[in-house]
């Protein structure tokens, strides 16, 4: 038997200082990838249809994304903790109607929004309590609450509906108005996203959400108040679903018992496309927000390009798969790169 006794070739040590930034940069890159896809898509559409990026066009694009961005932001927090909230669509629907009923009776728009948020918080708490105290699978529980809230909503609402005529003009105008091309609603969403991202990055309790999603048992051993954090994530998610409900009302001026029906799959898609991993512990709200923007924009881009609506659904699905596949391939490349860097140490 021979042992290949080669002369010890000096392995090139990676410059350590650069490596930190590299890792950071690479994780940002995943969001960047979605952004690039988004921009390319917009550019192509603009080339094909010069009306697309008119002031009205931009406003529409942003407005369309707003509601999904808000809900996806809340959802990504829950997903980061290795849970999921499927009931967001139902929560959105019921809080939109609640706000509408209140406004219909001549209420104050600000109070109406607060009311919707509070209702959302209520359902978020319910989910959070069931998941964290009951320690039961989030998927099942929130699928259950999806049905429960939806059922309660339709029993309560019946065939009633709230139309723009029932709402104060200021509220409806607020829903479509804005500062030139930037709608007020989009500004609200932007504030929420940036605030949430800052919190997640800069505060201990935010990092703990990542920790407990990454390894729940280790989180317990590290003394992280797991239940409290999960409860908080669900509550926040509920609150944003409620807020989204109020904004939905302002935007569409129309709510009935089916509002928000089936929204959960869209939200989950946005979060997944945005690179938030379903097994918890990684991803960012910027990613989720970009995912939401990307998804809603596809729905504006295809009609603007004159693609027959017959094709829209198929293209949507294929683009969704492409987005996650590209993201995955980027991630794999990164992992290989990381591994090669770390292959020689110690």
């Amino acid at each position, binding site marked *: 038997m021979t*042992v290949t006794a*080669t*002369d010890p070739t000096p392995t090139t040590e990676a410059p*350590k200082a650069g490596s930190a930034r590299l*890792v950071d940069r690479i994780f940002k890159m995943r969001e960047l990838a979605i952004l690039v896809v988004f921009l390319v898509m917009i550019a192509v559409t603009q080339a094909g249809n010069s009306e697309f990026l008119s002031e009205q066009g931009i406003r529409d694009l942003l407005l369309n994304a707003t509601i999904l961005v808000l809900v996806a932001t809340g959802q990504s927090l829950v997903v980061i903790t290795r849970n999921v909230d499927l009931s967001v669509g139902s929560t959105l629907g019921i809080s939109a109607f609640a706000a509408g009923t209140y406004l219909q009776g001549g209420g104050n728009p600000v109070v109406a929004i607060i009311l919707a948020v509070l209702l959302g918080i209520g359902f978020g708490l319910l989910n959070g309590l069931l998941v964290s105290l009951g320690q039961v699978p989030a998927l099942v529980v929130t699928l259950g609450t999806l049905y429960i809230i939806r059922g309660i909503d339709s029993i309560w609402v019946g065939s009633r509906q709230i139309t723009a005529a029932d709402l104060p003009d200021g509220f409806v105008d607020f829903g479509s108005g804005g500062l030139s091309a930037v709608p007020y609603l989009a500004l609200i969403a932007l504030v929420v996203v940036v605030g949430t991202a800052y919190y997640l990055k800069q505060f201990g309790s935010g990092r703990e959400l990542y*920790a407990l999603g*990454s390894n729940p048992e280790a989180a317990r*051993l590290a003394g992280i108040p797991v239940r409290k954090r999960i409860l908080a994530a669900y509550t926040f998610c509920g609150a944003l679903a409620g807020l989204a409900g109020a904004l939905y009302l302002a935007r569409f001026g129309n709510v009935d018992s089916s509002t928000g029906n089936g929204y959960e799959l869209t939200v989950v898609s946005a979060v997944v496309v945005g690179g938030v991993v379903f097994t918890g512990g990684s991803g960012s709200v910027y990613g989720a927000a970009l995912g939401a923007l990307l998804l809603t924009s596809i729905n504006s881009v295809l009609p603007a390009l004159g693609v027959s609506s017959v094709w829209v659904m198929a293209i949507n699905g294929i683009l969704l798969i492409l987005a996650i596949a590209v993201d995955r391939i980027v991630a794999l490349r990164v992992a290989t790169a990381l591994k090669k860097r770390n292959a*020689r140490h*110690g």
Partner: protein
Amino acid sequence: MTHPSTTGTAPVLALEDVSKSFGAVRALRDVSLELFPGEVHALAGENGAGKSTLIKTLAGVHRPDAGQVLLDGTPVVFHGPGDARDAGIAVIYQEPTLFPDLSISENIFMGRQPRRALGRIDHKATHAATADLMRRLGVDLDPDQPARGLSIADQQIVEIAKALSFDARVLIMDEPTAALTGSEVARLFGVVRTLREQGAAVLFISHRLEEIFQICRRVTTLRDGAWIASELLEGMSEDDLVRRMVGRDLEELYPKQDVTPGEIALSVRRLTREGVFTDVSFDVRCGEIVGLAGLVGAGRTEVARAVFGIDRWDAGEVEIDGKPLVNGAPSTAMAAGLALVPEDRRAQGLVMDMSIERNIGLTGLRTTRKAGLVDRGAERSRSLDWAVKLQVKYARIADAVATLSGGNQQKVVLAKWLATGPKVLIVDEPTRGIDVGTKAEVHRLLSQLAADGVAVLMISSDLPEVLGMADRVLVMHEGRLTAEIARTDATEETVMAAATGRAAA
């Protein structure tokens, strides 16, 4: 019960007549223990003796069924790990508890990050503190690297760094060295000595007895959950300690039988996996035990993974009995008679939620079937058979392996693979976390297997084990095979020299 507390100070942390049961298993029975400042205290006992349970009781993970925990002489109740941490107790658990998605520095400082104004995290300070810890431990890990992908050894090092970062009054370590090689252990001990001098109390668990003698002053022995003795180590011999733990004398630890090697069973030719290992060639003959030594991260595990087919290799080839193996196909490797006992029993060796029986049965699904269906009778007898042979300590064969102690889990992994009756057996850290008694048993088994004509490749970071068991020692350094040393020439010095790249044979 005598307390040879010569220091005269009061114990920082103590257990008083603590009992703890899991269902029908009485893991601890009226156990008492005192930890004094400035002292390293060893906890010894066989697998399943209750050491980890005791530690988890001290750490607030388990609440004792009876008895109490005393902190500075006053009874306390820890409602969770957080309480114990706040009381100044740092714990390294037997199994690494890292957050794979977070960076090393976040893993270390989770929940305790240095803060800036408004309670925001000071990322710079966190990074610097981590780098500092890494320097103290003498390892070269990037603080910003995610924990995912770290080898078991590196994970263990991060755990150690985490525990050190507490500046705790009490440091509890459950087998921190099980995955480490000599040099890391030496560095760890250096740090522990400093801590001891600074007045910390340390509780240390290891199945490597020499380590206990090296660093500890007193030892508490447990057997089957019961307290046996707490005494000074001074004047005790390893045999004395083993007798306390096992309750009888042990046979020889390395019962190597001499065999004449037969045909070449496993042949690895110029195997390369880019960036991981390069140009690795060796043979293992029937009846031979070949040791594979090297520092942590030298690439030994990676070679084993590639040979077995878990990872694909980029170049080279592997033959069993002269027939080439398919690249990246564990099932065909198994069919050819290859078995791999992996190093990470929890993630790779076992399906934790499955029963002992089914875990052992898993490797025989294809061979022991009747009319295409699972032969449950055969499965049961096979697993009972091997569980008994390896002296696995369990309540019922249908219990989930997750309920077993670490060492007993390791035995189940061995059982699972030995049950396949392999021609070539690769064992990666086969005795990690196994108590001395069982270790001897495992060695006897390996030896017996070799005598029966099985070719054994043994990867181990436990150098005495390699030296004691191997007919030949291969040494890896930075992804290359750097030496082959015959049994007669193999000493700690020659192996370490090759492992650190200072000499090539």
